[in-house]
């Protein structure tokens, strides 16, 4: 691959990189100016479609294609929601963009609204990002002052209002229809789809929802063109007509047991091992990796033998992970107990399940209870098959739940037990020598007095 030059992080580290003045000094808002003067909304949509940009929020859906699902000639209003709820454990790339280079995100959002004819944009920001809140609000204010937001932007007939909307510490608000419900002032219960938000979304109007990093990519596609974007990353597999390829630069988050945790920009398709060694300075304390989460905990686990997996949209799926997810890699060194890992994961999903689908609400809660009992030395070998049964039966994929949170809860369970079954069995035998092979029901941990 030719030498790769970061664009998404190019300004990060410069003094005052968050200000309009610095952003403009590096070509900021030139693409907006040119696009409004020279391109129609349909042209811009075509450009984004031609770039093969796929959403960076987790699902990897082609962005330009999603925009074309909006009804034609709709009287409006059409809404844009920028998904800045970033709550997937391990993930912080949106935070870096919003804090260090918010104008890059806002320019992309304005362009995306132009392409989709949206007239109001809401940035749904998780509450726990006070730094992002301050920087985004200041940047939005600067944009109104400069005529990049408001009525008749840069003398065109395009008008747009942009507002920041803060969440209240609930992971499910990142799911696009949970986000919509939350923004409408209701509990964040995801909606059954269809109708998809493009047809009936926020306030029952056509709505586009895109991730913060997706917006930043739109800025660079408008600046440099679709061919530049397609020159980076992993091309589509010619033998697989359904593969849309993995193009463009990507922000990878690296944390856990590495020497240099951080957010790094690389072409889509860098392997997990390259990321850990070349950017992260290797596993900490001269230890070996036992496993790594490839894209936020919802995606499951790569074993030490699977670290050469390319982190593009199809790589992690080839080794039994759910997908690329948020491209957040968390490294577990060889000393980590896989039981502790799974307990941590199950606790997260039990806490964050919104509760409206019984399989998800009960499945996440029971898996946590089983892991707590296991950790307290009361595990049984039969628990592993029970956990796998939960893992195989909750989620959109088996068809039992409304949203993908349950699939995200299921994958770590399935991956951890299928890939590390020996360790689970050893742990259970060792910590529960008298009860490990019990198969009849056991009382809850509280009744066992195991806490």
């Amino acid at each position, binding site marked *: 691959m030719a030498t790769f030059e970061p664009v998404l992080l190019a300004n990060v580290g410069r003094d005052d990189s968050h200000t309009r003045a610095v952003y403009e000094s590096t070509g900021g808002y030139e693409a907006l100016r040119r696009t409004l003067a020279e391109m129609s909304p349909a042209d811009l949509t075509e450009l984004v479609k031609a770039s093969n940009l796929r959403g960076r929020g987790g699902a990897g859906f082609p962005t330009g294609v999603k925009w074309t699902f909006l009804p034609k000639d709709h009287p409006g209003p059409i809404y844009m929601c920028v998904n800045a709820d970033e709550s997937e454990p391990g993930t912080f790339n949106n935070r870096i963009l919003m804090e260090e280079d918010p104008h890059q995100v806002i320019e992309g959002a304005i362009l995306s609204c132009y392409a989709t004819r949206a007239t109001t944009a809401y940035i749904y920001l998780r509450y*726990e990002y006070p730094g992002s809140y301050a920087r985004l609000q200041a940047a939005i204010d600067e944009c109104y002052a400069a005529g990049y937001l408001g009525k008749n932007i840069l003398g065109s007939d395009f008008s747009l209002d942009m507002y920041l909307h*803060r969440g209240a510490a609930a992971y499910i608000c990142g799911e696009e229809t949970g986000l919509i419900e939350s923004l409408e002032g209701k509990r964040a219960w995801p909606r059954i789809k269809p109708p998809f938000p493009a047809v009936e979304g926020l306030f029952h109007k056509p709505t586009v929802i895109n991730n913060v990093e997706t917006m930043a990519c739109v800025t660079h596609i408008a600046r440099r063109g679709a061919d530049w974007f397609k020159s980076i990353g992993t091309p589509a597999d010619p033998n697989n007509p359904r593969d849309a390829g993995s193009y463009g630069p990507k922000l990878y988050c690296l*944390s856990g047991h590495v020497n240099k945790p951080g957010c790094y920009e690389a072409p889509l398709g860098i392997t997990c091992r390259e990321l850990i060694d070349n950017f992260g300075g290797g596993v900490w304390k001269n230890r070996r990796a036992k496993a790594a989460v490839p894209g936020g905990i919802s995606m499951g686990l790569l074993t030490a033998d699977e670290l050469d997996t390319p982190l593009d949209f199809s790589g992690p799926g080839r080794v039994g992970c759910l997908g690329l997810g948020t491209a957040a890699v968390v490294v577990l060194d060889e000393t980590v107990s896989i039981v502790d890992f799974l307990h*941590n994961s199950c606790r*997260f999903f039990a806490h964050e399940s919104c509760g409206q689908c019984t399989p998800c609400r009960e499945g996440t809660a029971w898996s946590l209870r089983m892991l707590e009992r296991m950790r307290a030395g009361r595990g049984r070998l039969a628990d592993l098959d029970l956990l796998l049964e939960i893992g195989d039966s909750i989620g959109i994929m088996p068809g039992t739940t409304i949203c993908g949170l349950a699939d995200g809860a299921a994958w770590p369970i399935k991956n951890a037990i299928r890939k590390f079954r020996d360790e689970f069995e050893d742990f259970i035998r060792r910590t529960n020598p008298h009860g490990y092979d019990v198969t009849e029901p056991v009382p809850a941990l509280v009744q066992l007095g195991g806490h």
Partner: protein
Amino acid sequence: MGARHPPYLMATAERILTDEMVAAIQALLPRYPTRQAVTLPALHIVNNQLRHVPLAAVVEIAELLELAPAQVQDTLSFYGFFKQDAPHGRTRAWICRSLSCALRGSESLIEHAQQKLGIASGETTPDGRVTLEEAECLGGCDFAPCMLAGGQLHKNLDTAQLDRIIDTWE
């Protein structure tokens, strides 16, 4: 619409929402096509001032937004975020317990904070100084283990640093 009595018609002494809060909430109405969409922002406005949102405030918010109190209460109770019975501490501290932080010692950090403050997670010190919370991923995994408190992300913490930070809280 007409038959309802908005809270600003009540005697000032009985009101929970101050004129400033009401004005701040009303200023947001033009941003959204429905009044209900102002629910979360309104809860934040009240919570920022009162450090909780008592039921009486929910009723007043509902009147302002022309909703049934139960609608506001339903939304509020979905988020574990807004306390209702009593204000949270003057500092509300969230220590992250999710994977990246757990791998770098957040569990002992949480235990240490509990011991130092003499409270369990979710509780407030009797003097009202601190509320300690366990958070899921704060999006600061590059600085694990971390804590959000006083509008600031405290990074790469160890117990000694945590002690020093806790001691600065008034």
